[in-house]
């Protein structure tokens, strides 16, 4: 951790003092330092994942951020935006899962036995072989001269035939639209599977009890005069909570911006969908689940259904004009005050992608988050029965 911190400070401190003439030489030094941090995070996550799950999760996020920086560095702004947003939802997802895992003590019976030691050594060798092999392959390919004619075709035809200047987005929603349709179908199926599995979810008995923090909070509230149970939870992180609630419209606008610029500039349906899902998620984090659900009813399954229908409908629309499935049409429409807005039929397809991503991400995260609520309800019902 200390080495990673030191390298991060050094790379940032060095960056501000760079002169443009030295940029070429120093750029690779900075990049190397960034990857020292990335490697430290990856190895640290591998090291800590057994006993210190939270630390491993944070280190995993560090490795993800280094990946984002790499995407930015090597001219992939679309990937960087999407990876950064997905990073946020992955971390929240795993944090929600932590509560249901068993407590882990430093010693496990049989952990120091010869057999497990040998096994760990063997696994280490296998892992090092895999890593070394893939590093070698990627180095060889990266240093070979590029000879890809297919991407030249995409670059030459993206604007003329797809009507968008962001080639990555044009490939996704136009040239390879059918693939993307398959992807969002997978996403929808996974979302529904998670939802269905969690409806019948029976967590282990030991995780059903109140967490230690909840017990402290209740004990504190009981001990003080004029406080009811739950007051501490309500006051907890009040200021960040208010800021998160006020961020809601701002993130909505950001999602809309990402969506509409997607065809010409970095952004698009995937990134916008995850951004809107984060907006909903922040509301859940900022306030009580029951409070938020009284005011905001998100129906993720309908979002998914709507998204898939829009995507299929856009694809079938081209039949009416005698073209094959998912042929797109594009032009610019002049909107007063805003200017020329790209209005390709691919944009409607992207709307389908957007809605499916929002629905699937929100469905998965809310389904996991609801487990705690469900079990605390079951617990208080059981307590009431005992009191009678």
């Amino acid at each position: 951790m200390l080495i990673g911190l030191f390298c991060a400070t050094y790379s940032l401190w060095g960056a501000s003092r760079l002169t443009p003439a030295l940029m070429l030489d120093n750029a690779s030094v900075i990049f190397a330092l960034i990857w020292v941090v990335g490697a430290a995070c990856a190895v640290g996550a591998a090291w800590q994942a057994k006993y210190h799950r939270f630390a491993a999760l944070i280190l995993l996020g560090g490795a993800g951020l280094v990946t984002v920086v790499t995407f930015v560095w090597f001219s992939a702004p679309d990937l960087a935006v999407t990876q950064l947003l997905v990073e946020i939802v992955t971390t929240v997802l795993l944090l929600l899962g932590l509560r249901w895992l068993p407590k882990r003590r430093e010693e496990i019976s049989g952990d120091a036995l010869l057999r497990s030691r040998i096994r760990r050594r063997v696994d280490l060798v296998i892992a090092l072989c895999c890593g070394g092999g893939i590093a070698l392959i990627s180095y060889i390919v990266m240093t070979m001269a590029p000879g890809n004619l297919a991407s030249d075709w995409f670059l030459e035809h993206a604007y003329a035939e797809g009507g968008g200047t962001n080639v990555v987005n044009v490939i996704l929603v136009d040239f390879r639209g059918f693939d993307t349709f398959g992807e969002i179908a997978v996403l929808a199926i996974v979302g529904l599977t998670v939802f269905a599995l969690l409806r019948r979810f029976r967590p282990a008995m030991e995780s059903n009890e109140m967490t230690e923090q909840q017990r402290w909070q209740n004990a504190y509230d009981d001990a003080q005069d004029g406080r009811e149970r739950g007051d501490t939870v309500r006051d907890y992180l009040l200021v960040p909570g208010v800021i998160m609630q006020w961020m809601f419209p701002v993130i909505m606008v950001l999602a809309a911006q990402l969506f509409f610029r997607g065809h010409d500039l970095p952004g698009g349906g995937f990134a916008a969908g995850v951004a809107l899902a984060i907006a909903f998620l922040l509301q859940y984090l900022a306030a009580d689940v029951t409070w938020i659900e009284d005011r905001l009813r998100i129906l993720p399954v309908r979002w998914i259904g709507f998204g898939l229908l829009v995507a299929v409908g856009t694809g079938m629309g081209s039949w009416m004009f005698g073209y094959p499935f998912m042929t797109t049409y594009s032009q610019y429409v002049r909107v007063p005050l805003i200017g020329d807005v790209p209005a390709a039929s691919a944009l409607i397809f992207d709307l389908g992608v957007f809605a499916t991503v929002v629905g699937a991400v929100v469905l998965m995260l809310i389904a996991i988050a609801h487990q705690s609520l469900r079990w605390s309800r079951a617990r208080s019902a059981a307590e009431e029965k005992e009191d009678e």
Partner: protein
Amino acid sequence: MELILSLGIGILVASGTWLVMRPRSFQVIVGLCLLSYGVNLFIFSMGRLRTAAAPILPKSGEIDPTAFTDPIPQALVLTAIVISFATTALFLVVLLASRGFTGTDHVDGKERQ
């Protein structure tokens, strides 16, 4: 640059592979996330590394394909990022459910004797 990134990919894949072979469910999830970073960067690097050549075209004039980086690996990785989130979520839920059924977070469903 190429050397640094390939070493980075190697370390991500090595840590991920090590964790995937561990017996506890949380280790496997973290391992899969690390592996997905490594694989995404690997696919992305197949388009060769170019700085300041984002595939955003100018609106007018001739298009010179050599002035831009390869967009195909980027398009592949973009969907892979979202799909890998979905598989992580599915995997987490399957492991939580399996822990509920078996009472342990060992991937085999029972502690090794």
